[in-house]
């Protein structure tokens, strides 16, 4: 197919000079081909970035956008930290009352969670009475309970005299959640399971 209209037919009644003049334009139109369809964002008009210095400015704009994005990230992180810290504060200062199970029916305890230290450790203090003295190679273990299951150990202790009671310093090197709880179990050296629960939270 020859692009364009039939030039001779189009110019059938034109004088030679006019014919020649328009022939050149006709040929140019054929060579040029159709103009492109513009994407909407190009057709809309020049952008501000074009008038603030071109490529350098574009980089400048990109840098500002990157800074803005970084600021947003920092704000989000701050919010997140605040949220976590807020929840942490719900944990800190918490005193959990524990009562003995059938394994140690006369036992009672309280577990106080202190403020988290800068390294992320949660010091705790457990005060317990009524826990029996255990046979050799046995000990008590404090477990962090998450989602209803013993999740991680927070320290172990032994009891010398059930009547006197015991107060021990423990630590939870974990990020605590408001829903976390604790139990105390009785364990034996060399056993992998948590052992029977001797103290559980007072419901």
């Amino acid at each position, binding site marked *: 197919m020859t692009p364009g209209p039939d030039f001779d037919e189009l110019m059938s009644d034109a004088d030679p000079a006019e014919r020649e003049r328009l022939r050149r*334009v006709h040929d140019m139109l054929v060579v040029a081909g159709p103009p492109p369809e513009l994407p909407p964002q190009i057709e809309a008009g020049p952008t501000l970035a074009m008038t603030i210095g071109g490529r350098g400015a574009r980089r400048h704009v990109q840098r500002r956008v990157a800074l803005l994005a970084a600021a947003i990230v920092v704000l989000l992180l701050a919010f997140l930290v605040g949220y976590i810290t807020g929840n942490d504060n719900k944990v800190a200062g918490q005193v959990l009352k524990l009562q003995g199970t059938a394994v140690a029916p006369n036992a009672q305890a309280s577990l106080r969670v202190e403020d988290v230290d800068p390294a992320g450790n949660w010091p705790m203090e457990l005060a317990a009475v009524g826990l029996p003295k255990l046979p050799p190679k046995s000990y008590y273990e404090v477990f962090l309970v998450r989602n209803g299951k013993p999740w991680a150990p927070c320290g172990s202790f032994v009891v010398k005299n059930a009547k006197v009671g015991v107060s021990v310093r423990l630590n939870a090197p974990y990020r605590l959640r408001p829903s976390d709880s604790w139990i105390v179990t009785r364990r034996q050296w060399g056993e992998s399971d948590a052992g029977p629960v001797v103290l559980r939270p007072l419901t």
Partner: protein
Amino acid sequence: MELALDTPARLRAVPKTAPSPAPSVDATDADLLVRVAERDRVAFEALYHRYVRSVYGIALRKLRDRQRAEDAVQETFAAVWRSAASYRPERGPAAPWLYAVARNAIVDRLRARSEPPMEAPDLASSEPGPAEHAEASFVAWRVHRALEELPPKEREVVELAYWSGMSQSEVADYLHIPVGTVKTRTRSGLARLSDLLEGELA
């Protein structure tokens, strides 16, 4: 500030200075460039609309990639804004100056392309060579720019007659006008294009 490439801020949305009078439709490209050199955003926008199709057209021809062509348009007009003061009307019309700016922006884009070099063909290609391509690009540049100046009715007929594949009678049917009117408008459009191409755009 351009926050998103999809929705860049438009000049009209953020006038930094009092708006200058809109350039007359008779203002030449050179007039507009001189005003752009004086940081006239209205003139810049007018110049943009006159040339954006031509710039995008040659960018597409050379780069064969819409996104890169769009980037080249951005770079071209940023360079026009930046360098307008270097244009000297006494040295010649604005169209070739603008073409050179666009070509440089496109060449920059081409250089930035990281494609593996092609192996040399065994036989000489019958495709047009670089010189022919350059010639055709400049012709397209001038023609597409000149088309912007045609009255809409003439432009419509010329575009349909040359690039739609329709015959003159089909164009007439399509536009619901007599075939004689199609011929008249086509010839009138060609004559006006000839004047434009032999005048400032030459």
